[in-house]
């Protein structure tokens, strides 16, 4: 996410300086635009089109049949379930973490900030493996969990855990800089006016971070539904049980069932498009709040 947003920022910066200040030669401007747009088309547009055409190569009926396949339905349900658990939890965690970091000083604050960033710097496969190491049959807690009759690895629980780990920075990262820049004067004002803690949060803090929060949740959701690496390690690939959509795509593809693979993939691509348009909408609606988070 960081790289993508950084890219948007740099592009906007580039345009504004060239139009406001010195004039670049026309040829250079056209050349750069062609390179940028061409690059995007080649590496992002083309694959997207391929996914859709491949999915529909044998007609709409075949496409619908591929999606209505019980295993595909189960994968879709599983993906939605995992996201429905992981995203709200990470939303709560993100708000709580950002609140502590932005509004309080405590020992270990910088450690907490570093830990929040950890999933961004660790390969998702590694985080999946860590869960296997902790909860697996040969893992630290494996035998104990086994004796209790609880299985974690190769179940939905493991998928949720792995997804939470991989996606927990999104909300917190969006909120921390914003809440830091807003300070706590408004909250203090609310307290002196007689508001209690909950009223202060609900009526003052939440409205002030609403845009950035929605934005973070959106990114978190996109990643939760699309996550492959960590989920792949802990899933066990049990058909119709622990295969999420990305995993289902891989299985179908490896079985040379291209139409079905691309059909499921097209749903994920659709999710990406919806996410993108919602993101643009939010960026436009809450441009002030989001601009504040970019300053840092």
């Amino acid at each position, binding site marked *: 996410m960081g790289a993508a947003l950084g890219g948007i920022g740099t592009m906007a910066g580039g345009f504004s300086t060239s139009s406001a200040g010195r004039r670049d030669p026309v040829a250079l401007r056209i050349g750069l635009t062609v390179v940028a747009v061409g690059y995007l088309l080649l590496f992002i547009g083309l694959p997207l089109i391929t996914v859709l055409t491949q999915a529909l190569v044998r007609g709409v009926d075949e496409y619908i049949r591929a999606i209505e396949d019980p295993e595909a339905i189960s994968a879709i349900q599983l993906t939605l379930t995992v996201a429905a658990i992981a995203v709200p939890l990470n939303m709560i965690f993100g708000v709580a973490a950002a609140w502590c970091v932005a509004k309080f000083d405590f020992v270990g604050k910088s450690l907490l900030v570093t830990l929040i960033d950890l999933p961004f710097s660790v390969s998702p496969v590694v985080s999946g493996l860590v869960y296997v190491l902790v909860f697996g049959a040969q893992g630290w807690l494996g035998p104990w969990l086994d004796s209790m009759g609880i299985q974690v690895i190769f179940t939905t629980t493991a998928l949720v855990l792995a997804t939470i780990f991989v996606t927990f920075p999104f909300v917190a990262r969006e909120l921390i800089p914003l809440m830091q820049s807003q300070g706590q004067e408004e909250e203090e004002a609310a*307290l002196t*006016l007689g*508001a209690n803690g909950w009223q202060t949060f609900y009526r*003052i803090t939440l409205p002030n971070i609403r845009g950035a929060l929605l934005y973070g949740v959106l990114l978190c959701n996109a990643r939760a539904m699309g996550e492959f690496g960590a989920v792949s390690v802990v899933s066990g690939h049990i058909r119709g049980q622990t295969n999420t959509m990305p995993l289902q795509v891989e299985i179908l593809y490896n079985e040379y069932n291209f139409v079905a693979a691309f059909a499921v993939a097209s749903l994920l691509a659709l999710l990406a498009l919806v996410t993108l348009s919602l993101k643009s909408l939010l960026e436009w609606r809450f441009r002030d709040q989001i601009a504040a988070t970019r300053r840092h």
Partner: protein
Amino acid sequence: MSLEINKLTKTFGAFWALDGVGLEVRDGEFLALLGPSGSGKTTLLRVLAGLEQPDGGNISFNGENLIAQNVRERGAGFVFQHYALFRHMTVAQNIGFGLQVRPKETRPPKETIKKRVEELLSLVQLEGMGKRYPSQLSGGQRQRVALARALAIEPKLLLLDEPFGALDAKVRKELRRWLRRLHREMGLTSVFVTHDQEEALDLADRVAIMNKGKIEQAGTPQEVYRSPANAFVYDFLGGANKLDCVIDNGLVKFDSYEVARPDLAGVSGKATAYARSEDIAIVPATMRGIPATIGEVFLAGPAPRVELKLANGAFVEAIVRDAPGAPLDYGAQVALQPQAFRVFPET
């Protein structure tokens, strides 16, 4: 019935923000907490509001122990330096907030809140602005909304943190006069923090001057201006010139110029004298006095202001109220006679 502060202490790490503060604010009084930045005045205000917990000492307000109460229970109106208006609410919603968040049993009905907001809007001269957002207001208007919002909860104590700090000079002066009038009408016990001595002396019934977490002096503007308790107060209230001198058993010596001060009999050693600009007389160089050279002369204003350079390189400012005793020409040699001054021996 008043606010009594006793031996209040507050530390931030190794820094003593409040170092045994004792102060009394009388009922209905408008008190200024004046001091340089870092003197602890804002911390004191925040402790009074309950936004900071003191480490020690006590505060009683009308006989009640204030420290035992939390921010909400104290119900003190607090006006923040940067207004802290709720940016997502309209002016009317901002002002009504304190009533809106009351528990159901004590919350006034909608109509009453609306009426109260209208009253407050007209009190702060912002009629018809209720539907605007804070970002659509000027600095002075925002400050008045912040004040109306604090007054909405009918506080018994009003606390203002640098209320004019973020405003330009003209608006500041207008708002100051207006606040003075408002206070006279309402008679609400108020404490305001400022680092601007002119503001404090103009506005307050009494001024408390703070330095390094302690109250240096508290008194009416006249008292603190006319008889500053110590060198810091003299220095901080401004308009005072610092003159190096030596005391020799009741004789104050400025270089060759000597003044007898019987009250300093028995005191000897190096000292610093403070003399206000209007208390320094300029006389011809041939007369007794501290030798000085005339620098810039500022003729705009009610009385000429003269910059003078002493032999040791120090600058002195004099305000010439009567006909000058010597021609005020740039570079001319003159002598200075401090008519009234306070001497503080070096410790």
